């Protein structure tokens, strides 16, 4: 039995300890907003927050998560889907197919939490997620738009 804190709730999971966090979230907690893209921490579709840091959950065995660490997924980012990043994303129609967007939104939200006014270079460095539809230009605009609004 593994104990986790996900989106503010304490949960007990009956899973093998080497289960990656991604699959614990998706298959045991039914939190399917976090996506599988590569399984080797390359594409960022599985990004979640652990204690405010971006973590790629597809390559993170569940037993390596510190006790009491606070995990936040896209479902828990904001109560009504109204985080400044999410609002900017809607205003600019950032998503195309949308599959990579939960991971990108989580990565962008973590960036803004630490750096309320990131420069283009700082955005380049932080957002290394893969989007095959090619929404990068609007991702950049969306982060700039959300920057400065209250997070």
């Amino acid at each position, binding site marked *: 039995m593994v104990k986790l804190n996900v989106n503010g709730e304490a949960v007990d999971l009956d899973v*093998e300890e080497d*289960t*990656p966090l991604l*699959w614990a979230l*998706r*298959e*045991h907690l*039914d*939190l*399917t*907003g*976090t*996506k*599988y*893209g*590569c*399984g*080797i921490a*390359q*594409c960022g*579709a599985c990004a979640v927050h652990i204690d405010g840091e971006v973590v790629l959950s597809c390559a993170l065995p569940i037993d390596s998560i510190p006790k009491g660490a606070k995990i936040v*997924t*896209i*479902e828990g980012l904001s109560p009504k*889907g109204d985080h400044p990043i*999410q609002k900017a*994303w*809607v205003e600019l*129609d*950032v*998503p*195309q*197919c*949308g*599959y*990579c*967007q*939960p991971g990108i*939104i989580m990565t962008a939200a973590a960036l803004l939490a630490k750096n309320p006014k990131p420069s283009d270079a700082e*955005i*380049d*460095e932080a*957002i*290394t*997620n*893969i*989007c*095959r*539809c*090619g*929404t*990068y*230009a*609007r*991702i*950049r605009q969306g982060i700039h738009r959300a920057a400065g609004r209250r997070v």
Partner: protein
Amino acid sequence: MTHTHDITRRNFIVGTAAAGAGLTLGFYAPLGGTAPLAAEQAHEVNAWVVVKPDDTVVIRIARSEMGQGTLTGLAQLVAEELECDWSKVTTEYPTPGQNLARGRVWGSFFTTGSRGIRGSHEYVRQGGAAARQLLIEAAAIRWKAEPAECQTAASVITHVPTGRTTTYGAVAGEAADLAAPFDVALKDPKDWKIAGKPLPRLDTADKVTGKQVYGTDINLPGMLNAAIKACPVFGGTLKNYDEAKVSRMPGVRKIVPVGDDAVAVVADTWWRAQKALDALPVTWDFGPNAKASSTDSAQTLRQGLEAKDAYIGNRAGDIDAALANAATRVEADYAYPHQAHATMEPMNATALWTKNKCEVWCPTQSGEAALAATARAAGLPRSRCDVYKLHLGGGFGRRGAFHDFVEQAVTIAKELPGTPVKLIWSREEDMTHDHYHPLTQARLVGALDENGDLTGLRVRISGQSIIASVMPGRMSSGADMFVFQCLAKGGDHAISYDIPNLLFDHAMHNPHVPPGFWRGVNANQNVVYMECFIDELAHAAGKDPLAFRRKLLSKNPKSLAVLDAVAERAGWDKPAQAGVGRGLAVCKAYGSYVAACAEVSLKDTRDLKIHRIVAATDPGVAVNPRQIEMQMEGSFVYGLSALLYGECTVKEGRIEQQNFDSYEVMRLAEMPQVETIVMPSGGFWGGVGEPTIAVAAPAVLNAIFAASGKRFRQVPLKNAGLRPT
């Protein structure tokens, strides 16, 4: 709930109608059963339009949404003619089973070849217009008035002489009983209020909260999960496997051979299934292609550049004479590799099989082809099967002509009757079992006269035919005419230039790696070949690449217009800043006219900086200019990923690249500034999702030459040591 096969117009009931609600839609609707009870009554006015009492309008969308925005565009077209309240529009996918049962009332489901809108605009607009007429008629009958005296706006019907009003929701039930009009008039696009506008997409909200349900997210009661491994060598087969080694691993339920070339592990969760699969000892018979390599294919294709026999795709004048009489003769060889689609959502499908029926939930670019695949694998007639489509996590052509993943899922589910099984391919499986961008080379020979004008062009394409592999029935006397995309005499992929003497032909060589339609398809390599070589000719003639092209486009005003537009915006007439080179490319693809101008610099012969791209498109009619801009922007990511990195190589019969660590793609830091010009000239309907990809790579390659004097003729650039900075 919409999934009944004996739908009558009177009792049609809609429950969940949000876009992409295929998940909810299919669940508890038994095939051929009665319509389940829904919370509220809704009326199907006609096949395209369902209206609820609160004036919510559900527009049926037959084509698939994979990011390209077709869902919103098609809804705009229906809503425009319907004159409904756009703020109350939702959408839903009819199923291919319903389409079959209703005599293909929704037409084609195929969402390939940039045809989502250009292939269905007329009948979907007629559907909206007919529904409007029925609603007006129902109101007029109530009022004992003439329909001609009624007007509509935002779902409100007004009887003009008396000022009486009612709403679509109030009369939809009566409208549903009326006979469909024989003929409806369509609006002139210049009068559009909903279509033609840059409206926000209808599918964004759920995509920013994680609520959007993709195929990989399906969760059915009692569902099991499957992971699969096919023979790594194409054409090889499964010999045997040692089930005992993994059958007691946690969660494992069953191990099943799939077809003659794959094995799957079924477990309670996908992670456990994949883990057991990784541990499963498997022996393969690698078959006749076990030694095949990229080096061998390249060698074979090189021979094709000089082969005697070839299929002619376009011919004019006397090319031999033109070359013999040339003042200057220019010759160059180019090559384009295999590339994987690498959709972010790996291949997947969920199947539920019983002796009497089979249902599948999956992302597909063609519901009808998915239904056919389902029926084939299920051993049931199509009328006993159905497919519930979900929005795709990327398509790019991978999920259109090929439903290998559907057949596999059904084959596995057949071993577990009554239990739904979700099959997800690992990224490694996805990347090594794709249907790849075709492998080709080209030799181009051009003749310039003493004035530096192009008098003749010979293009020999050597390499793979997609059609021969995928749709052999569409070959014409052994030839694949689709190979000549953007080089054809006329049509949607006509060559842009007016060249008096030309000969374009194809020496077909099909390596064992299966080819597929890859966003842009043959336009991608052909426009690299053509536009880079035109650039070479311009330089050989000592002419400005813009002026050289303009002269050849004098009989093609639409291509000229897009080319001029990018040149003007880029400031072609003024010198670029020091160290920066500009490159152009223009073509007609999927019925649209597109052009791009790239500005790049190259430092230390390896650090490539793409500063800026200006792109223009004339798609004839622009249904949603904002979506078109997004497709153009994204096209540079897809097209430049291909140019910079895209290559799948073959060693010992198998694809070497397995995941994004070895199959790199462009990331945000490398994204150039892209400025888009949408310039619809009206009068025709061109595609949007693919054309611009074709100009991305050649514009950048030509700009690299302008900046550095280096001409790169092989994709991808990583092999030449170039890295984006």
